[in-house]
C-alpha cells in the first residue's frame, strides 16, 4: 500500500464517526494498542520535548526503508503517533520526503500538528522528514 492509500484508508475509517468523542475514543484505543518503544530506547537524544506532552522517536533505515517506533506520555498523542507511524513506517525515504500528510486535517486533527500546540507531534514529523532527506543525500 502506498502512503496515499494508507492515508485514504484512515480517512475512510474515521468517516463513520460523526461525534468528536467517538473519534477520540478510537484514537485512545489506538494509543493503547501501539506497541511501546523499547524502554532502553527512551533516551534523551530520542526525546522530543513538547510544552504539553513528550514524544520519543526511534527511526532507523533498514533495507532502504525507514523503520519507526515512537511513544508518548500522553495517550491521545500516542494514538495520533500510531496513525502517523501506520502511514510512514517501512516506506522509502523519497516517498516520505514528497508525502503530504493531508489525512490529519481530513480527519479533523490538524490542531494537534499546529506549531502552537507544542505536543511534540509536529517536531516528530519534521524529524522523520529530515531523516528521510539525509538518507537521500547520502
Amino acid at each position, binding site marked *: 500500500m502506498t502512503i496515499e492509500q494508507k492515508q485514504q484508508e484512515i480517512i475512510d475509517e474515521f468517516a463513520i464517526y460523526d461525534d*468528536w*468523542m467517538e473519534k*477520540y*475514543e478510537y484514537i*485512545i484505543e489506538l494509543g493503547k494498542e501501539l506497541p511501546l518503544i523499547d524502554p532502553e530506547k527512551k533516551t534523551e537524544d530520542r526525546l522530543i520535548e513538547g*510544552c*504539553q*506532552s*513528550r514524544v520519543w522517536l526511534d527511526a532507523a533505515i533498514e533495507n532502504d526503508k525507514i523503520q519507526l517506533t515512537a511513544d508518548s*506520555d*500522553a*495517550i*491521545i*498523542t500516542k494514538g495520533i503517533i500510531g496513525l502517523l507511524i501506520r502511514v510512514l513506517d517501512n516506506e522509502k525515504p523519497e516517498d516520505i520526503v514528497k508525502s503530504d500528510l493531508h489525512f490529519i486535517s481530513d480527519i479533523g486533527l490538524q490542531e494537534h500538528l499546529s506549531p502552537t500546540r507544542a*505536543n511534540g507531534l509536529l517536531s516528530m514529523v519534521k524529524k522523520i522528514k529530515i531523516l528521510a532527506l539525509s538518507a537521500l543525500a547520502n
Partner: protein
Amino acid sequence: MENPSKRKFSVRDIRQDFPALRQQVYGKNLIYFDNGATSQKPQMVLDAINQYYSKDNANIHRGVHHLSQKATNEYEEAREIIRRFINAEKKEEIIFTKGTTDGINLVAHSFGELLSAGDEIMISAMEHHSNIVPWQMLAERKKLVLKVIPINKRGELIMEDFQNMLSPKTKLVAVTHISNSLGTINPVEEIIEAAHAVGAKVLIDGAQSVQHTKVDVTAMNCDFFVFSGHKVFGPTGIGVLYGKEAILDEMPPYQGGGDMISKVTFERTTYNELPFKFEAGTPHIAGGICLGTALNYLDQFNPHELEEYERELTEYAQEMLETFENIRLIGTAKNKTSVVAFTVDGIHPFDIGTLLDKQGIAVRTGHHCTQPLMDFYQIPGTVRASFAFYNTREEIDQFIAAVEKSISMLG
C-alpha cells in the same frame, strides 16, 4: 454591606455583558474556565475599542489638533481611573506597560541599575516564569544573589523561612499576590512589612489578583505593583506598573525614545518627568483607554460581593473534585481563590484537557509557566480550571461530569 450606588450582582445579568460567552464550540455551549490565562471582554470594552478606532484615533501628547487632544485626554483619564482603582496616591505613579511581564522587566532593568554585586533579590517557589527569569538575568548581569522562599505541600509560603532569609543584604522581594497555578493568596501585607523592616523594597505581581480581589496599593504599602489589562477584562498588550514616586524618581529610564525626553541634543538628553520618563514611544493608546473602561465596568460592582462569589465557586469545584478517588488537587492553601488544579492518577493532563475541549470546556493543561513549581510537586503539569465572576455552579457541574467522562474514556 449593601451599597445602593453599586450594581446588584447577578450572574445571569452579568453573562449578558460578555458576548464571547454566548457561543458554541464543537456543538456544545462554551464553558470558559481559562480565565487565569485571559478573561473575556464585556460589551462596554468592545464598544470603547470600536469608538476609539472609528472616531478618536490620533497620536497623543504632541498634536495641537482636536483629535490628538481628545485622545490624550482620554488616555490620561484612563490613568486616573487606574490610579483610583488601585488607590495609588498620585497619577504619576501609574506607568503604562505592555503587561505584567513588561512591568517586571522594567523594574528589573531600571531598579536593577541601583543594585550592586552581592545584593540579594528574593522570589518565591510559586512564581510565574515572568517573575523568575528577569531576576535571574539581572542577577547574572549584576552578580546578585537570587533566593527562593520555599512553600509547603498545600502551596503556601513558609513564612518562617522567609523571615529567616531576610537580611540587610535583601534589596528586593518580588512575589505573586495570587498564584496562577495554585490560586494561593499570599500574605502580602506581612511580606511587605517584614521586607521593609530590613530596608528591602517589594514588588507584587498582581496579574492574578486585580480581577479577583480589591487591591489598595497604599494600604498594602508595596513599592511596585504590576498587572495586565487582558486578565482584568481589558485588551491585550496593555498593563500597568505602579511604583512609589520617590523610588521611580531615583530609577533611570528603561527605554529611550520619543515622549520620554525633556530635551535632546547630540551631546546630552534630559528626561521627561514621571510617568512619561518610563513611556518611550507611541503607547498602546486604545489599550490604555479601554483598560480604563474595563476597570469602570468592574467598579460598578461591590468588589467584596464578586470576591465572595468566586470563592464559593472555587470551594464548590474543589469539593466536587475531592469526591474522585484518583484525583489529586494541586494547591490546597487555606486562603485561595479562583483556581482549581489537579492531576489524575495514571492519566496525562494533556489527555484530559483535550477531551474537555471536545466537550466545550476551555481549561489549561501543562506547567502554566511555573516549571519549578511542577518540579516541586514532581508532576509534568496539571489540569487547571480558573474562574471569573461570570462562571456558574451549573458550569462546574457540567465540568465535573465531563471530567468523569474523560477519565472513564482514558482509564
